[in-house]
């Protein structure tokens, strides 16, 4: 019995010593803030991964195709604009129906990362109040992601959905893309309208 009591006491002392060595060693080698910092990095990194601009809409078989052009046409590079591209009142949006890509991680003329611009669209005209000129606006939908719930606009200048179905701001223009899921709409300037073309439009409308 006595022998057993000594052994038990030795085991308990060894266990106490081992526990103390481990915990003090851990406390000496590491810092609490360092651990929290690393944990935070891992959590934030995991959260950021799906936000990277990974092209999801294009399938592997289309990987060698040139990406669709985005943004305004080069010939209107010197355009002077005024206003808030995240507001429905912005001059370019005079015929836009849908969510503004400028509110959804893109801009007034480029899709957000991960959304694919539809090649098929409708084209209208809007007057730029800065230079009082009329510009051709291409309302491309950005597709392949769930609908963006911000900045929904409905302006109809130039849209004639009943008489000219191809000039409708209200249809889904996600044609010719891998996914028909609508995300948001851009308003790219693709040219300037001359006075003659404007007059013709007025004649045709009247």
């Amino acid at each position, binding site marked *: 019995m006595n022998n057993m009591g000594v052994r038990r006491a030795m085991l308990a002392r060894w266990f106490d010593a081992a526990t103390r060595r481990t915990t003090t060693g851990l406390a000496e080698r590491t810092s609490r803030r360092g651990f929290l910092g690393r944990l935070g990095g891992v959590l934030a990194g995991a959260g950021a991964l799906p936000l990277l601009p990974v092209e999801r809409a294009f399938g592997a078989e289309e990987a060698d195709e040139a990406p669709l052009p985005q943004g305004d*046409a080069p*010939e209107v590079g010197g355009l002077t604009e005024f206003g808030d591209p995240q507001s429905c009142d912005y001059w370019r949006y005079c015929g836009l129906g849908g969510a503004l890509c400028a509110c959804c991680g893109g801009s007034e003329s480029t899709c957000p990362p991960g959304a694919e611009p539809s*090649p*098929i*669209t*409708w*084209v*209208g*005209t809007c007057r730029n109040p800065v230079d009082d000129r009329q510009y*051709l606006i*291409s309302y491309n939908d950005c597709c392949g992601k769930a609908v963006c719930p911000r900045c929904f606009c409905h302006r109809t200048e130039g849209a004639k959905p009943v008489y*000219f179905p*191809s*000039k409708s701001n209200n249809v889904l223009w996600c*044609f*010719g893309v891998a996914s028909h899921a609508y995300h948001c709409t851009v308003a790219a300037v*693709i*040219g*300037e*309208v*001359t006075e*003659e*073309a404007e007059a*013709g*439009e007025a*004649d*045709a*409308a009247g």
Partner: protein
Amino acid sequence: MTEWPAPRPAYRRLGMLALLCGGLATVGAPRQAEDAAAARIDYLLHCSGCHRPDGAGAPPEVPSLLGPIGRIVATPEGRAYTARVPEVAQAPLGDDRLARLLNWVLWEFSADTLPAGFRPLDAREVGAARKDVLADPLRARAAIVGHYGELEHQPSPAPY
């Protein structure tokens, strides 16, 4: 993009004719450039939404205007066809502007396949043709030019 259609054979012949006519050359050239610029705006406004600004379209839904489409205008039926395609015939443009637009499309996108001695479409023939809108443009095109490679796609059995 605004000069029309500088390096192309059909236009060179026209240019030679203009030069022969002396004074016409000085007046005619800027006018043609203006026409081309105006035709391009009409194209961007009324056609480029589907056929895209570079004419490449989005096959098979939207046929490309590049290349082989110039073969269509080799026959009288084909010339008329260009103005009978539904959205073309119904475009909110007068006959002269529609003719100018169609000629610009042919020269800009399909100069290499235009028939030798191609005579530009004029407002009168375009005006007459567009009165007879095609109910089935794909079938009509197949009857005129047959199949032309990867640009051709089969008429869909769907009711649209």
